[in-house]
């Protein structure tokens, strides 16, 4: 009876109608009996829903535990299925002509699955008697131990020697959960020669482990640390694959059930030319310096050299602390990449750009003459700003000022131009900011302005500082890469390409995809005449017998434009009677020698910047390096016949 009423009430409720109560008339007063009924109805309804949901759960559980039991049992019971990550093969790196720069060679490493060792500490102690384990190895192992998936193998020692492999093989039965695995290790066949461009890979550090996608780096032990290896890490790394393996109760793999193969990383073809690298490196022979060569037509970096260099192969297996300290404490700083990170005053190599600025802003014309007595005095000041030639150059126009590298002419030009216009003009050639090359860690150089000085130094700008900037000294700083880039823009008469090292990529099993050089912009507002005048004056620097780099003209088989530069390392008194004698000054305080050049003048194919630290004279020391690199490049491009002595070296 009660049940029947309850159900009819439930049915009405479901239709959304009020429930007429048969026992009592409807009143605005509280109807307790009706409310009790309502609640009971709802509670019973809720119970029905609960039973239905429980039935759903039960259905699911019956499916999992009865119907699909066989399936899950094989996945678990005695033979458990595990996913073993299969690291992808890292992409190879070649130079522009296909010379191998980075490859993967098989090596043997010792790996441990901690769960399977029983007593991990005892195992590690015993292993130490079979193979050599350094403190660093153990520490790295423990760090990695803290963050890992269950039953994942952790590398303990890399690069086992043949003897160690054999010794362990004999003792292997004593070490459950420890196994030798063949791994591919990165190797750089040309070592120090290409380290600035290629960089190197190293073991994944703790900080990197936190940053990297953990799933994508399962099973990968190394990651790019410098150079292209770091910049193009995602391209080179590839995608991790998985083996679905059946393991026994001890976790040893019995067979592979299914496999999702890894996708190898892409091969990279770099713009650099190993032969050019070698020429530059040999030309720098034993000096500290940098050479950067860029193809002005497309921004391809043809050579990127910084000496002294180091062997990247040392870092792949984990460099031992002694060797690392030796590298770090070497006064020649081999780890320092001068080409990308060295901030040097450009010295007189800045003059072509300033000459152009003068012409464009109408501060000078090609015919404007300035008399050089050997010094320059600012109006209303007594201070003398010396020319490098104490006796003076006499009457100078732009062309003569360039080929003599007359300082007084450019003091005057800079003074009339003013620092802000000067910096704004130079910025268009890429000075003062990173070039955006596809390498990590590029320095930005420094292009001073009034606002900069007030912000950073808290002082106003002094007119004398404009003069100093006019000969590429003072606050102004550039990297060799920036200098080469600016030269390339000049050579291409304003066409700007972002310098780059990546020439082409190749997907595994796929064809080569060559990157399209997309111009990044153009330096506009400069007339053809002005380009012509400055470039002609740069050509005169070499061709004219009085030019500061006339020494390079001997045997020159093409038209070359260039500019020497000498940058002071050490502030010498400007106005005192002081005789500058290079041989008296400690070698480290001697001037840096600089040279920028491009060739052939009519259709430039290569622009070069050379910096030789404490080299002294730009024309004598840095110039020949640039000449050698340009010669070599034009020969290899088939624009010059190859002399007999070089023919054998061709790759």
């Amino acid at each position: 009876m009660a049940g029947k009423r309850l159900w009819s009430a439930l049915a009405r409720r479901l239709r959304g109608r009020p429930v007429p109560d048969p026992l009592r008339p409807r009143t605005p007063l509280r109807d307790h009996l009706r409310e009790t009924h309502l609640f009971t109805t709802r509670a019973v309804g809720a119970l029905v829903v609960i039973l239905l949901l429980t039935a759903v759960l039960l259905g699911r559980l019956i499916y999992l535990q009865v119907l699909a039991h066989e399936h899950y049992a094989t996945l678990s019971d005695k033979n458990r299925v595990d996913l073993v990550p299969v690291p992808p093969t890292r992409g190879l790196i070649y130079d522009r002509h296909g010379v191998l720069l980075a490859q993967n060679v098989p090596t043997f490493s010792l790996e441990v699955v901690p769960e399977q060792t029983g007593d991990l500490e005892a195992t590690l102690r015993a292993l130490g008697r079979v193979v050599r384990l350094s403190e660093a190895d153990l520490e790295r192992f423990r760090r990695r131990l803290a963050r890992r998936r269950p039953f994942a193998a952790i590398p303990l020692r890399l690069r086992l020697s043949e003897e160690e492999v054999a010794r362990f093989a004999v003792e292997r039965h004593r070490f459950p959960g420890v196994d030798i695995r063949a791994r591919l290790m990165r190797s750089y066949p040309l070592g120090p020669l290409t380290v600035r461009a290629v960089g190197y890979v190293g073991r994944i550090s703790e900080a990197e482990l936190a940053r990297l996608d953990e799933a994508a780096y399962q099973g990968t032990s190394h990651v790019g640390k410098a150079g292209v290896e770091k910049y193009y890490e995602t391209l080179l790394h590839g995608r991790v694959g998985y083996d679905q393996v059946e393991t026994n109760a001890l976790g040893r793999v019995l067979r592979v059930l299914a496999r999702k193969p890894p996708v190898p990383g892409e091969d990279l073809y770099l713009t650099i030319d190993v032969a050019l690298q070698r020429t530059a490196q040999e030309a720098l022979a034993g000096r500290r310096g940098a050479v950067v060569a860029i193809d002005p037509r497309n921004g391809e970096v043809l050579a990127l050299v910084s000496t002294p260099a180091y062997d990247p192969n040392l870092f792949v297996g984990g460099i031992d602390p002694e060797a690392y300290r030796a590298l770090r404490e070497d006064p020649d700083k081999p780890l320092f990449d001068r080409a990308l990170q060295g901030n040097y005053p450009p010295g007189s190599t800045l003059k072509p750009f300033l000459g152009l600025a003068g012409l464009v802003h109408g501060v000078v014309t090609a015919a404007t003459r300035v008399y050089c007595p050997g010094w320059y005095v600012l109006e209303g000041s007594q201070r003398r700003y010396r020319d490098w030639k104490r006796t003076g150059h006499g009457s100078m126009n732009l062309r003569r000022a360039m080929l003599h590298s007359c300082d007084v002419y450019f003091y005057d030009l800079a003074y009339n131009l003013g620092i802000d216009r000067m910096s704004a003009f130079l910025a268009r050639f890429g000075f003062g900011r990173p070039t955006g090359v596809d390498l990590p860690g590029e320095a930005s150089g420094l292009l001073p302005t009034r606002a900069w000085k007030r912000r950073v130094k808290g002082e106003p700008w002094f007119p004398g500082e404009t003069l100093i900037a006019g000969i590429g000294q003072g606050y102004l700083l550039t990297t060799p890469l920036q200098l080469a880039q600016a030269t390339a823009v000049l050579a291409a008469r304003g066409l700007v390409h972002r310098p780059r090292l990546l020439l082409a990529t190749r997907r595994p099993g796929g064809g080569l995809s060559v990157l399209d050089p997309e111009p990044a912009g153009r330096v506009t507002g400069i007339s053809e005449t002005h380009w012509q005048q400055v470039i002609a004056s740069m050509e005169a620097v070499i061709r004219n017998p009085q030019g500061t780099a006339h020494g390079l003209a001997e045997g020159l088989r093409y038209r070359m434009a260039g500019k020497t530069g000498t940058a002071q390392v050490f502030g010498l008194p400007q106005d005192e009677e002081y005789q500058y004698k290079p041989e008296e000054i400690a070698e480290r305080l001697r001037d840096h020698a600089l040279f920028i050049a491009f060739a052939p003048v009519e259709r430039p194919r290569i622009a070069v910047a050379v910096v030789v630290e404490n080299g002294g004279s730009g024309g004598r020391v840095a110039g020949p390096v640039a000449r050698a690199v340009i010669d070599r490049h034009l020969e290899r491009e088939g624009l010059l016949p190859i002399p007999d002595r070089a023919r054998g070296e061709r790759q």
Partner: protein
Amino acid sequence: MRRSAPWERARGGSLARELHLDLPLLVALCLLAGIGLLVLYSAGGQDPDLVERQLLRLGVGFAALLALAQLPPHHLERWAPWAYGLGLGLLLAVLWVGDEGKGAQRWLDLGIMRFQPSELMKLAVPLMLARHLAARPLPPGPRALAISLLLVAVPVVLIALQPDLGTALLVGSSGLCVLLLAGISWRLVGLTALGGLASAPVLWHFLRDYQRQRVLTFLDPESDPLGAGYHIIQSKIALGSGGLFGKGWLNGTQAHLEFLPERSTDFIFAVLGEEFGLIGILLLLALYLFVVIRGLAIAIQAQSTFTRLLCGSLVLTFFVYVFVNIGMVTGLLPVVGLPLPLISYGGTSLVTMMAAFGMLMSVHTHRKLLSG
């Protein structure tokens, strides 16, 4: 023939009545806690310390149950707004000064212990709502309904902001349970459900990355077998390999070889399923159902609208816990971090749950006997 159940005639029965306890419910809860300790001992790698700590928590929980059982229900009704107001204040305080744990602010450091105000809200919301709705005739009119919805929405939003979506959903559902039991029309319920579905894309926008990842992984666990999908894959293997009878206590390989993550806490159900099989699960579900049915019976027998609504909603929320957790472990629902009531390792929600059962028992044992 019998006028009273056997347990009510037993000697223990009179003691239970004096302590204001409901013996059937108490026995079921103790059995569940016992099963929980048994499974925890296995899931936690046979660590006696872990079991000891859980025992301590259970002790605190039963103390809370006992304490609340002594409190006559009209006190609960009187104090409901205070509890609710305090809870709201603490939630706001947590948003301002709470400790950051796992990128979410949930805790308030009181010096002696860390306290999660959202736990208080699990009880305060049904209390407040039951009081509010009981003050006027049922089913509630539009005005009462609007106020009720506001009373639920404010704490839910505050908790969701912490962000603790699991608890927000629970608190919200406890409020909705009160409304359902109070007799709001089914059409309204249907419309709300439709609105909820429609607002899902908006909700998606407010989810944190890890929460989105959980939903995506739920839809396709195989897409990330070593990452977010690992939990679900491993728990299904654990359950499925357990079969009808299980691998036996302490013999669950999935759990013991550490394939199964969070095996002592949110995923403990998978350990139970692996070691005791479907039979063990049936026993557990039967106990849960018994608790639910007994709880609903207490609610139906309750003598005031307030107590009826309160008890009903507490029981339904208890079931939501069970359903969401098991649904998650079996791969029916996305992974939301909710423990399995009385079984999972962990303290805060356990104490809240026991307190709720204390209220239930109080309601049942403080009835005024009309006859006999």
